[in-house]
């Protein structure tokens, strides 16, 4: 923020306050990578939401005679990406798996984001004993072997998607807890918080109105990175046999089950792997963009014309090593 005042970040000098900040889609249009990410994510979300309506039971329909067919154009739409060992269409399974994958990853991330941030902001704002308590809770969760919980819950109780969500959510709470605590602890001594306090504003209002908005971009960035983490962990659980259980299918499960066919039938494991990579990279790109776009002091970065951004002229000559 101080950057703007002292070293004359151009936006503040050149765009007076009455000038409305540029529309977000214009900013998105400027960042081709983020725009591509947004398109991919939208696509994935649409497929996850509505894909099952179109494929019917194709994801489950087996044909042992059509086992391990390579991708081809001659077997109709469902043969486009080949078949798996049970002769099920890989395309249909990818579509079906998109729904499962997102229905695990998104709630897991949201749960840990909400719970972890709430606890962390509360702890960081109040400080003292409450802060210590929250941090120790985080310590316990972090040092608890989450695999043990996973095995207990998934083998002893029931291996449902809901349980996987719960496990992943609990395991990731400390990350948000610590991040938001740090932010809140730093902000609680700031002038505007003090001011609010002197007016007798209740603490949850201060946290909600004053601290949360400032901490949110960071938390959202962490959440995006976590989205990736959750998908990969779910995949690793499948590798160990305790992830999503057949006949449900997730991308992680497909990668895990297909890995033994890596040499003979690459499409079974490479395609879902690619789906994971594409989705998470898109989410990360979009998060990076959103972080900049929501930060007035950084927004100008997005406004650089494309051709100059990569060119050396965009960088002060002094800074070229």
């Amino acid at each position, binding site marked *: 923020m*101080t950057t703007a005042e002292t070293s004359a970040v151009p936006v503040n000098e*050149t*765009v*007076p306050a009455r000038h409305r*900040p540029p529309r977000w889609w214009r900013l998105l249009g400027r960042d081709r990578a983020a725009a591509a990410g947004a398109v991919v994510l939208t696509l994935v979300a649409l497929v996850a939401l509505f894909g099952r309506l179109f494929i019917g039971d194709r994801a489950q329909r087996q044909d042992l005679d059509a086992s391990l067919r390579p991708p081809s154009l001659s077997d109709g739409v469902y043969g486009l990406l080949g078949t798996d060992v049970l002769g099920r269409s890989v395309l249909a399974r990818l579509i079906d798996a998109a729904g499962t994958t997102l229905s695990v990853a998104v709630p897991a991330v949201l749960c840990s984001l909400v719970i972890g941030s709430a606890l962390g902001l509360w702890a960081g704002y109040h400080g003292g004993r409450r802060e210590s308590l929250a941090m120790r809770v985080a310590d316990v969760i972090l040092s608890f072997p989450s695999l043990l919980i996973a095995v207990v819950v998934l083998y002893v109780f029931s291996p449902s998607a809901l349980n996987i969500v719960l496990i992943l959510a609990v395991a990731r709470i400390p990350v948000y807890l610590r991040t938001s605590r740090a932010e809140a602890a730093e902000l609680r001594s700031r002038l505007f918080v003090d001011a609010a306090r002197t007016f007798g504003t209740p603490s949850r209002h201060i946290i909600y109105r004053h601290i949360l908005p400032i901490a949110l971009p960071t938390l959202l960035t962490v959440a995006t990175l976590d989205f990736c983490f959750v998908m990969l962990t779910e995949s690793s659980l499948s590798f160990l046999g305790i992830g999503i259980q057949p006949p449900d299918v997730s991308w992680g499960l497909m990668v895990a089950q297909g890995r033994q066919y890596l040499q003979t039938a690459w499409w079974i494991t490479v395609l879902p792997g690619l789906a994971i990579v594409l989705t998470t990279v898109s989410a990360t790109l979009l998060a990076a963009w959103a972080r900049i776009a929501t930060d007035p002091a950084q927004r*100008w970065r997005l*406004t650089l014309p494309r051709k100059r951004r990569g060119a050396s002229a965009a960088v002060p*000559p*002094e800074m070229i090593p």
Partner: protein
Amino acid sequence: MTTTSAPAPSDTAPALDVEGLCVDLSTPSGTVRAVNGVSFSVRRGRTLALLGESGCGKSMTALSVVGLLDPAASVTGGAVRVRGKDTLRLSPAERRKLAGPVLSIVFQDALTALNPVQPVGRQIGEPFRIHRGLSRRQAEEKAIELMTRVGIPEPRQRAKSYPHQFSGGMRQRLLIAMAVALDPDVLIADEPTTALDVTVQAQIMRLLRDLQDERHMAVVLITHDLAVVAQRADDVVVMYAGTVVEQGAVHDVFTSPRHPYTRGLLDSVPEDAERGRPLPAVPGSPPELSAVPPGCVFQARCPLVRERCVRERPSLRSTGDGRSAACHFSEELDRA
């Protein structure tokens, strides 16, 4: 001080000569020209003030001189000459050789301008390590000398302290100490006192003057404070919307402004104006850089505006006595 091979400038030659400087800036609404053909020069021992409202391009001018522009902005034309070299055409390594011994800068907010995780002694001694190759200990000794010079009490102990352990005024002193460490030819002070309270402001300004006298530096003072200019500067360059509208000796300009903008500024100062007040209001506000009219940049707010002003942009013309102004009708002002 003479690590650079360039000849030491004589007192008559300008220590800093800026000519036709243009800076383009990328904004959401396209590329705009933030600094348009700014020229000025300053000799050693003299103080030049860059005066203007927020957003007029004065800070960007200063940053282009020392080569610290943000990536969103780039120099697209002109020359910045020190010791006979155009710094805009130097290689980064050659430029670094000038940074410190020849050109240096002081910022407004000393808290963020000091590295929060380094002891101040080390930061102040850093120029000696970079340019003179002194050992850490020798540099620290030099730093303590400088801290003494700028009036830090108990400098030897305080050299080990961190920036957040100093008051605002002290931090500004530290920043100044760092800037004058290598006796630069030119010191650029970018609103050095804005963040401070009035009594401290005066102390800092006095310190700057003493150092300037002692070290015979050229000072470029960037400010929006007319009083500071009046008391402190020898020459003034008045900027508006990225261009220079008037320049000349402070006394001359302030007694008989030859541009309606300067005139407006001066007129709006009440008799009992105090130092440190923000720049007095001229009715209206400057044009957006993306919408600078084709004619005179000041036309929208000018009391003298005429048809010619809309059609033709006035160039900066000499008006005698080493002064110049960018107004088609500056003579009228002079007469008035």
